[in-house]
């Protein structure tokens, strides 16, 4: 029997359930499109399956490496991921441009999204930095400024791609981690007040971001144009009802819903598996949340605590933002649903994160 105290087994089971759901839904959402564009209905699902295998490999490796290893290697890791972002940002030709954004590095036949490991590296850095400062954390120059500058550098590079969603979520992770570590609230508030005009400028300057902002408030106003995606997403939820129309029978993915297998996969889950499916998914994420928090509370040192919280935030923040976006509770961002959406880099990075969580748990239990 699975007991509530068996956090490790719960974590493994939940992760497996999430990626399995993801695999099935990637197939359901992509097979028709894949058939048409690539001549094989298994085009995406095959790749996703390989990503999952790689992900589990990394999951196992990460769970075996004592997490204090990252404490020692935090700066090299940070530097490496920063370098990757730099290469992507400034060296032309190495990036894979999709829809005007350069988010992928080409590595032979593979593509790779440097912002994903960068998020993990920044979390490790923050956990390390914040855990070593103890009392000085309350000061402005030693406790507040350095982590802000470091995260800001990464955020700036990610914004340059541009990837507004990832940049914002990294900013949010940094702020929440700093709050937990005890950085003075007044510093954090002043930072938010300070950032507001910049945020506004960034949104209003770029035409499509402004549009996204506005359509989310009333997607029906322009349901054929800017609100199209969102309206189609909402229709998908509505069509599903409580029980859903059945796996594979959804209609919205048939070209009504662009990017059904990535950003809007939740809408297809809503259509095919209904409120029951959505609720089950919410429960799975809640289990991840509880496991993460539990591991953090019991971790043997501050570094472990912050790292566990950071990783939990990495997954949960992205999950709730994606869910909120496809249900038109938040303006559209290019964020995927962790473990569920199609995509290799984020899956592997999230699996590494889960592996690290597991290791923190095991270390604490060895005592």
């Amino acid at each position: 029997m699975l007991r509530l105290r068996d956090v490790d087994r719960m974590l493994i089971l939940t992760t497996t359930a999430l990626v399995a759901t993801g695999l099935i839904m990637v197939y359901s959402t992509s097979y028709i499109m894949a058939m048409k564009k690539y001549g094989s209905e298994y085009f995406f699902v095959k790749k996703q399956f390989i990503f999952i295998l790689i992900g589990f490999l990394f999951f196992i490796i990460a769970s075996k490496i004592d997490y204090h290893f990252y404490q020692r290697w935090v700066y090299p890791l940070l530097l490496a991921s920063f370098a990757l972002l730099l290469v992507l940002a400034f060296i032309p030709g190495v990036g894979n441009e999709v829809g005007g954004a350069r988010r992928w590095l080409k590595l032979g036949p593979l593509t790779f999204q440097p912002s994903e490991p960068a998020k993990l590296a920044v979390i490790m850095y923050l956990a390390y930095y914040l855990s070593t400062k103890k009392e000085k954390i309350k000061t402005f120059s030693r406790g507040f400024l350095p982590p802000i500058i470091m995260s800001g550098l990464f955020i700036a590079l990610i914004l340059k791609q541009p990837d507004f969603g990832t940049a914002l979520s990294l900013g949010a992770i940094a702020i929440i981690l700093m709050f937990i570590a005890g950085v003075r609230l007044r510093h954090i508030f002043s930072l938010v007040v300070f950032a507001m005009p910049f945020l506004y400028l960034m949104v209003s300057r770029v035409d499509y971001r402004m549009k996204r902002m506005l359509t989310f408030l009333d997607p029906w106003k322009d349901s054929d144009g800017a609100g199209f995606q969102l309206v189609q997403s909402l229709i998908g939820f509505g069509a599903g009802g409580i029980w859903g129309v059945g796996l594979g029978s959804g209609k919205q993915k048939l070209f009504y819903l662009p990017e059904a297998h990535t950003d809007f996969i939740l809408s297809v889950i809503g259509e095919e598996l209904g409120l029951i499916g959505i609720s089950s998914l919410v429960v799975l994420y809640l289990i991840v949340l509880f496991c993460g928090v539990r591991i953090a509370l019991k971790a043997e040192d501050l570094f472990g605590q912050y790292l566990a919280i950071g990783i939990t935030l990495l997954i949960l923040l992205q999950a709730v933002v994606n869910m909120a976006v496809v249900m038109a509770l938040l303006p559209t961002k290019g964020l995927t649903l962790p473990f569920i959406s199609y995509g290799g880099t984020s899956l592997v990075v999230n699996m590494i994160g889960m592996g690290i969580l597991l290791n923190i748990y095991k270390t604490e239990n060895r005592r």
Partner: protein
Amino acid sequence: MKKMKENTSWLRFRIFIVLVSFIFVFIAIFIRAFQLQVLERDKLKALADRAHLKAVSIIPKRGTIYDRGMRELAVSTEVESVYAQPAKIENIKKTSGLLASALSIDRKELESKFTSKKSFVWVKRQLDFAEGEQIQRLNIQGIGFVKEGRRFYPNPQIAGHIIGFVGVDSKGLEGVELEYEEYMAGASARLIGERDAHGNEILFDSTDKDASKGMNLILTIDKTIQYIAEKELFKAVSNNKAKGGMVVVMDPSTGEILAMANAPHFKPNNFYEYSNPSIWRNKVVTDAFEPGSTFKTFLVAAAFEEGVAKPNDLFFCEEGSYGVADRVFHDVKKFGWLSLAQIIKHSSNIGAAKIGNRLGKDRFYRYINDFGFGAKTGIDLPGESSGSIPHLRGWSNVALGNISFGQGISVTGIQLISAFSAIANHGYLMRPYIVKEIVDGNGNIVKEFRPEVIRKVVSEETARKVTAILKEVTKTDGTGIKASIDGFDVAGKTGTAQKPDLFQGGYVSGKYISSFVGFVPADNPELVILVIIDEPSVGEFYGGVVAAPVFKEIATHGLAYRGVFPRGTHDTIKPLQVNLSSIDFREDEHEDFYRMPDLKGKTVRSVLRLAREIPLEVKVFGSGRAAYQRPLPGERITQDTLAEVWFK
């Protein structure tokens, strides 16, 4: 140390705040999902339907209908339908001209279709093979093809009223095609329009063809017996210059309908050519009529069961005229004292009225209902009528007399044969049915229909006594002598009913319904056959003269076909092999072979039975259920084929 502890609890508190915030966010997400999926569901669903209806529905491949020996009665073939995307047509005039002449449709009509603002229009659906080839060769821009199912009945003469037909949209309109529409139709496939970057619509067939195929039906009907029944019925109707007629053949022990024929008949391939739609009705189940003397059978059964009369009880038949209240009953011949058995044998109405009197209305009424009259039998065919039995309160003494010989009530053909089968089946009333199995495209059984006992109406003892009396009917000087068959005991009853005058009351003179219903061999019944001839207009009109010979012909051929031998001829005569190719089918020129049925999962017994029906020689290996067979299902077989079946 104290400070440290304080720090830790603050840390815990802050983590707790984050945790609680996340829980609130998840609750908000759940509420939003609930709002979208439950509260606003109808609004959103309506929008979804509207968007999807823009997609074009195409007709899926309908399931096949087989007879009990897996011989095809209705098939669907995939044919091309041609559509146009007007925006892509370069030269509307030229394109319409080409298509109009190739498909013999009006050019003006096409032109106006092509100039419309629609993104998709059908040019012509379900083309002939030649038309399809021709248009495809033309290869015109903006013209596309999609495969649709089209119904075809390979034996257009046979079983039209059972099978029914489908309309232009391939929806079942009559018969089992209508009754089993939901199983046979298949999922409606769709063409979806996709907008590419330039705003053009691209059509894309989104459906899985195999998944959308309809399921197949296997009927209880035996094509050969059906053929025999139809042939004999049509012959009798034409010889007697009758208005119409019907024949039903049933397996009394199961309630399976082996044949069901209506005259006049129609050809389902050309159903629309018949100006009077009432011809499509399967009158065996939809129309009720006064049964006449055949009904005396149930009176006698009730009297025996209640113990109010014995076969040798004598009744005075009043020398042919008997006054009850203000009415006078007549017999065709004048009779004095007759035993109950003789009353049935000679079909005396006065005798029947006296038996009815002895039984009493309450009991008679109860048995009428128990035999299934006045209620639908539940047969799986559309439009069944329940006939009408006057309510007990309305039964005067005259009515009791009338009903005793089958007047003043109305019954359907299917009720009559089902009730009669109960006598043949040791008193058990079975539910009649026409579909044995529903099978999906891969041969898996989706639904299986089994014999179903409705109730036990009379005891075995009573059934045996009634059978003994019915056997007398077909012997020397019985009314049904013309139904007798050499080497068999036939149990049956004749009927000759005047047709009621619906406008003036009373009966129309000179218009009769002549009937015979019986089973054979009487002591181990294989077949129950009902023959009704409506308004014979030349020569005699008595059931014993008009209908009984039809029974005899069908029974003789039917028994031989089923391999039931006459007395004393065991092993000396081979069963008559009714080879369909030797019969003149006219429109049926391809019927010189059979296809091997799928035997998988069947028992040894049912395989042997099936083999006897085809007929086919079978070698059996092992026991249990059929696992492997040679030839494979669907392969051509002849009567010389030796099939091998392995059981596990």
